[in-house]
């Protein structure tokens, strides 16, 4: 049943121009940046004389492109997640889902997975672009896999947060702004407390946990952080929608 909701979400995402536009813009920005980095690689490396200054093409292009991707997603996820529930609230279509034989958990999970699948398309496109370098260079596929997993987890966390804010209001724009503010705060948390890396608050920063992935390292502690983050906000969303049914 979750699968049916996922299909429905993807369908309505592709039925609106917003989905296509965001996908096109993301592809354009990533493609442009990718080409740029590949070109830059030769310039920078030809200037690097000592072996210590040289880095592999995967790391060079990858960290540039994935670093940008994590930042760009900060803007694009709220735009896509804002309408997930608040649009249904505004158009009064929630009863359609509530009166179908589905539990609220299935509805929320379906919407969440639908959005993550949509964004994963862009991420896999990015991975395919990186893998293309293998035509003339030896690519470190482990690095790409780690970055891809990290980016999917990061984007899934964004989506879970966005979904929760979307369930709070019937104004999609309000949901988008709230999501953006919350995400931005979580992203730059570590910048304020950069002096003290052992600080607990720093540990909450999303970027902090993406860092190890971006170095090509899959750290189970970071995976656990993202999974917990996602679970927390999905449970909050389920509870919010359940409260609708109970309190009306």
């Amino acid at each position: 049943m979750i699968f049916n909701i996922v299909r429905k979400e993807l369908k309505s995402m592709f039925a609106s121009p917003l989905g296509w536009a965001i996908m096109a813009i993301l592809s354009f920005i990533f493609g442009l940046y990718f080409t740029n980095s590949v070109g830059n690689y030769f310039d920078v490396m030809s200037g690097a004389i000592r072996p210590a200054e040289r880095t592999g093409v995967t790391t060079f292009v990858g960290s540039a492109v994935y670093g940008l991707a994590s930042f760009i997603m900060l803007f694009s996820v709220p735009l896509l997640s804002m309408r997930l529930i608040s649009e249904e609230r505004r158009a009064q279509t929630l009863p359609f889902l509530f009166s179908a034989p589905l539990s609220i958990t299935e509805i929320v999970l379906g919407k969440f997975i639908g959005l993550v699948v949509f964004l994963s398309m862009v991420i896999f496109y990015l991975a395919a672009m990186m893998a293309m370098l293998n035509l003339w260079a030896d690519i470190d596929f482990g690095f790409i896999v780690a970055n891809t997993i990290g980016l999917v987890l990061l984007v899934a966390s964004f989506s879970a947060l966005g979904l929760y804010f979307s369930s709070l209001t019937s104004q999609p724009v309000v949901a988008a702004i709230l999501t953006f503010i919350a995400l931005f705060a979580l992203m730059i948390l570590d910048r304020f407390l950069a002096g003290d890396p052992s600080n607990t608050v720093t540990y909450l920063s999303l970027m902090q946990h993406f860092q190890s992935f971006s170095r090509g390292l899959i750290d189970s502690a970071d995976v656990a952080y993202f999974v917990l983050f996602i679970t927390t906000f999905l449970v909050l969303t389920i509870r919010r929608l359940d409260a609708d049914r109970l309190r009306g």
Partner: protein
Amino acid sequence: MSNITVEAIELTRLYGGRAAVSDVSFNLKQGEVLGFLGPNGAGKSTTMKMLTGNLAPSAGSVKICGIDMIENPKEAKALIGYLPEMRPLYKELTVDEYLTIAARLHRVSGKNIKKAVENAKARCGLSHMSKRLIENLSNGYQQRVGIAQAIIHSPMVVILDEPTVGLDPIQIRDIRALIREIGQEHSVILSTHILPEVEMVCDHVQIIDKGKLVFNGGIDVLKRSRLGNKLLVGLHQAPQMDALLQIQGVTEAELLESGMVRVRFAEGENPSEEIVKASVKHKWGLYQIALDQTSLEDVFVQLTFHDAAAEAA
């Protein structure tokens, strides 16, 4: 067939201490159409939301074909088709896309989806609108899509909240015929403000006012209370009322402001023939004689007003 499809047991819903619906109980059998009547804010929609599991009742329970809505919501919801007051349409999709999603969500098996969609479209007169965006359809057609969505999985119980709002008279007639048709095999619950509609399509009527059931019975009971042994007689040269009282069967005669005479008669003794004869004999100038029907509106006002008076007392 006497299978009970819907069983509402002492449904109560509180909104911040105020009871929007209190102690509503009723049963509905298979093949029956139940009409829900009531003034605005009486609790019709709230009751329907509770029946469909969109709203949890504060007390009481709902059983659909014996399955409890609170304990086993998924199974119970699978047996219901629901059209809320506000049509839950995804306007960015076409009619076909939307109905396919509706069929899928209501557990229509993969190979039957196409058939179910075609069938629902044919029943609601939407076949020529398949590829149109719902957004671009007229109000009436959108309403039909809403109804199609509710019947797509041929549910045991179809619940329609004000299904004929915003339709033109021809469409209303079609929809009523459709509701009658659905009502043959399944159970239908519909709410409406339009009183003649209830009389036309429903077997049972419930009048709800201020969250309480004030009338629950067959449509014939309501019809009988409408007719009530009265004649409306139009006479050009109306005689004294005493003269009319002389006629056999007449128990009461009253001259109305409109110049017509309202005549009450004893049960089973319709004096129409006698009045015509007397009128010819005495040259009263009879130009009209008909059974005086209390309009349903009056019955409705009586029922809901009595309750208010009783509460005040």
